[in-house]
């Protein structure tokens, strides 16, 4: 006899084997482990890494001041905050838009690779890294919201106008994909023999 629980509603079952069945409480399919969790999460993470490149290279925002159009990437935005001596905000934007996505992508990729290659790291530490990645996931959206609010408030045609840049779409997609990748990953496979 084996113990198995529904990951959705947490109801416990005692079964003969690990075959899939339908939960009597929430009617979801109960599996021993999420199906193809590593493969799906890895694919999503690779997509997110590819999206991170245009997100960093292309302009996030277009500012038009007295007819002069200036495009700025995420890093240029951080530099402009430093020029304005807003060091705290520069750090916040830099951490939220550059550091956090990078930590998320590297962290997830590291965990996935460590399942296939023998890495000398305790499972507990890998789990901790994953928990951290999961917790910081949504905070990368700050830059997208900032662009949306700025674009919404500053609309004076040629005098003063702010528009989103093409990097906004790839950045938003990257954040969403990493969140889905983390959500889809079943950490229990880290501990499976």
């Amino acid at each position, binding site marked *: 006899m084996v113990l198995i629980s529904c990951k*959705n*509603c947490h109801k416990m079952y005692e079964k003969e084997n690990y075959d899939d069945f339908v939960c009597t409480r929430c009617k979801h399919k109960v599996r021993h482990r999420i199906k193809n969790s590593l493969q799906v999460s890895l694919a999503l993470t690779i997509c997110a890494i590819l999206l991170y490149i245009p997100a960093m290279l292309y302009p996030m925002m277009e500012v038009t001041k007295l007819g002069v159009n200036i495009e700025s990437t995420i890093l240029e935005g951080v530099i402009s905050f430093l020029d304005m001596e807003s060091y705290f905000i520069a750090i916040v934007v830099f951490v939220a838009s550059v550091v956090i996505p990078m930590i998320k992508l590297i962290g997830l990729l590291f965990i996935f690779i460590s399942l296939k290659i023998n890495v000398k790291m305790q499972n507990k530490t890998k*789990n901790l890294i994953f928990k951290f990645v999961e917790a910081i996931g949504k905070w990368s*959206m700050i830059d997208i*919201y900032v662009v949306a609010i700025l674009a919404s408030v500053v609309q*004076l045609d040629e005098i003063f106008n702010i528009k989103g840049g093409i990097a906004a779409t790839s950045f938003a997609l990257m954040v969403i994909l990493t969140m889905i990748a983390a959500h889809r990953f079943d*950490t*229990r496979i880290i*501990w499976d023999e």
Partner: protein
Amino acid sequence: MHKNINTIVECYSCGLFIKKELNTKLVQKCPRCNSKLSTNKKHSNDSLYFAISSLLLFGLLNIYPIISLNINNTELKATLIGTVIILLEQNFFFVALIVFFTIILAPILNSLVIIFSFIQAKTKIKFFTKTLLHDSFHFFKEWGFIEVFIISIIVTYIKLIGMVSSTKFDVGFYIMLVYVFCFYMSNKRFEGKSVFGE
């Protein structure tokens, strides 16, 4: 074993099955990975009151602007829905969809799910299945980013004040602060599993 199965809980981080401590109100941790284990707490009525307050505040904060500034006697304002509309106007359909879902739709539906759960638990009216309420509660809780939006408003304010000195937080921002508190509390006091009533 059958008698004790309900006293066992699985750690969803490492897959270890652990016997629950029934006589403690402290959060139990997994001995193998140190993750917090799920508890069997019941949701409190406070959650309903906070959810209703959240919805009312949400309606109110959509009326007032969040940030306003004045350039050459022209008053410029940003509202919550305005941020989505402008993205649509600038042809950022996907970004607009994400912003709309994460700061408007998910928080509203999250509060509505809590309210409907209470209505179904206290009356005989059945709007939705228990599974739908349980799943949608967790889904909208996961994808509602209103607290991130608050930080974004502060970042925007600091960015704008460097360019236009008349920039100020408007009434909508202060309503949003109270809204985020009510929203957080309604989720904190609500237990998704209690929807099943077991």
